[in-house]
């Protein structure tokens, strides 16, 4: 399993990346949507964890492009808050999960694992 983390807060992505490293999960990180898309073009990722609100290429548009570039990649949207209209939109664009910040790494990992079963999502 390979994960790409995209967030404009560099401290956040680098820390998360380090924590995934500690758990032996292969990952890359990017601090903008554009940068993230470049990585996706070059590498295959099972999961992309992307922030909703970023300068430049925002999360919603990025989701669209990621799905276009790599339809098999599953996407977890990070949001400051579960604004229903944004989540709705994200769903339409192809996001698979959402996670409200601050991120609990165990929750993040469990979201990625339960996906295999395609069961009910934890709410």
């Amino acid at each position, binding site marked *: 399993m390979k994960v790409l983390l995209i967030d404009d807060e560099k401290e956040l992505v680098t820390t998360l990346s380090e*924590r995934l490293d*500690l758990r032996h999960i292969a990952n890359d990180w990017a601090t903008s949507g554009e940068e993230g898309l470049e990585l996706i073009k070059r590498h295959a990722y099972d999961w992309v964890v992307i922030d909703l609100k970023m300068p430049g290429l925002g999360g919603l548009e990025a989701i669209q492009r990621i799905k276009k570039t790599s339809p098999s990649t599953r996407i977890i949207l990070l949001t*400051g808050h579960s604004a229903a209209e944004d989540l709705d939109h994200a*769903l339409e664009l192809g996001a698979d999960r959402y996670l409200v*910040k601050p991120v*609990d790494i165990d*929750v993040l990992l469990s979201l990625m694992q339960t996906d295999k079963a395609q069961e009910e999502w934890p709410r």
Partner: protein
Amino acid sequence: MGFLKKIKPAFWDRRDPGLELMNYRRLWANTFWAAVAVTLAPLVFLAGINFYQFENQYELQRNEIDNHMQRMLATGKVQISYFLDERRAALAYVNLENAFGELSNRRHLGAIFRHLRQSFGGFVDLGLIDASGIQETYIGPYNLAGRDYKDQDWYKEVLIRGIYISDVFLGHRNFPHFVIAVRHEKDMDQTYVLRATIDTGRLNELLKATDLQPTGDIFLINQQGVLQTPSQLYGGVLSGFPLLPPKGAAQWNGIHEAEDRFGRPLLVGLAKVDGTPFTLVVVNQPQVLLKKWDLLRINVIVMVGLSVLAILAVIWWGSNNLVNRIYVTDLRRAAVLHEVEYTNKLASIGRLAAGVAHEINNPVAIINEKVGLMEDLLGVSGEFSHKEKFLAQTKVIKDSVKRVSDITHRLLGFARHLPMKTEQIHLENLIKEVLGFLGREAQYRNISVNQRIPPDIEPLEADKGQLQQVLLNILNNALAAVGDGGEINIAVGPLGDQQIAISIADNGVGIPAEDLKSIFEPFFSTKGDKGTGLGLSITYGIVQKMGGHIEVESEPGQGTTFTIILPKRRPPANPEARTASGGAADASGQGGITA
């Protein structure tokens, strides 16, 4: 006072001086008096004219009564005169045509008496009295022949004046009659007198035949005011007539006003019959004759009075209604303006809070990851001094991060949903969120907040932010109402198939019955300066917009229960409503999007 309170319109006391756009009392007074002037002026004017004309008519009627009495007096007098003249002339004729010798013949006098009775009627007896005053011959029912009249006043008078008519008196048989005596005129040497007694019955009939009004009376009196013919009002012959005019000859002819013994006005007409001791009297009761006119006047006054009262009542009602409607509309408009202002303020605060929360959330997320990393690293590090203490510190930091993020999420939760939007709401979560805001106060004041929410309760379709506001307002009021150590019970349950009821009961001070009907009115507040009076009014408006309603029960001293009844599905009236599925934003922040 209770009645006054009941009829007093709402705008009369300036209950909401801040909201009232104008002086409604003055508006009411202007409306009322203008309408009164416009409607009553013509009525009063017409009534005045009518009254004036009526008074004229009344006066005419009075004059007509006077005139009628004058006519009766005149004709009555003529008839009495004629009656007496006829008999006097007959006697004078007999006196002229017959010498003393002839008349003293009893047979001859008897024949004359019979002729007189047949021709004129009323003659009771007839006597001849010679110069020395001795009754020479007498024809009649009594034995009066040879009687001496020499010293009697009437005899002296008839000798001097040639004619004498006596007052009425009761004779031996006790029936009234009077005397006519005539002196022989032809031969001055031969002085003798013919004396006849006349029955007053004929006179009575004559008077009865006059055109008398039903309540009137006509009769004769003598100069002493003694009745000479019977009267309906004053008794029989020889009774006294009490209403003599004050002394003075002039008063014995004409009409004067008097009062009967009940104090009712009377008109008394007198006419002296010349050459006799008689005065004709006509008595009338003008009040009785004018009764129908008085009744008419009373009717008109009553009708005008009733009309005025009815008009005043209608104008009163109309003015009240009109001004009250303006008042209510103005209040409502002012309330809407205030609500808009309030909503705008709320929106601004919401946006500010959201901005702050969002900005805080990012560094908090970083802190969260950093402390997570620290934990991870501690986990893979070997033992070193203070390792346990480090772990304890990271735990405290994580807990604090959790607290901060809870707050930011709540703030974000409130800030959202400014336009009405529908989503699936789990009441348990919602109530938890609302209590998150108020729970601290409850804790400080040792107020126990109990929830009874069945776990299988269906989610509700509603606008989350607004429902939050509704619950927040009611819970806020409940907290204000209960004392320290009080109790608030929140219960949720289905109501039929279509509705869900949320009841919030406190054991606080309660609401007096007279305030209960006003609590949903905007700007009605029992909290004094502390309350805006908007909370429940906005709450009511929101619940109505949601297609539900609020019920309230309260017992002063026992507590208050608000029950919010909401439809499970939002009514389709609002086309903007869009069902969005999504995870409930509880503080743990995990969720999935389901198709």
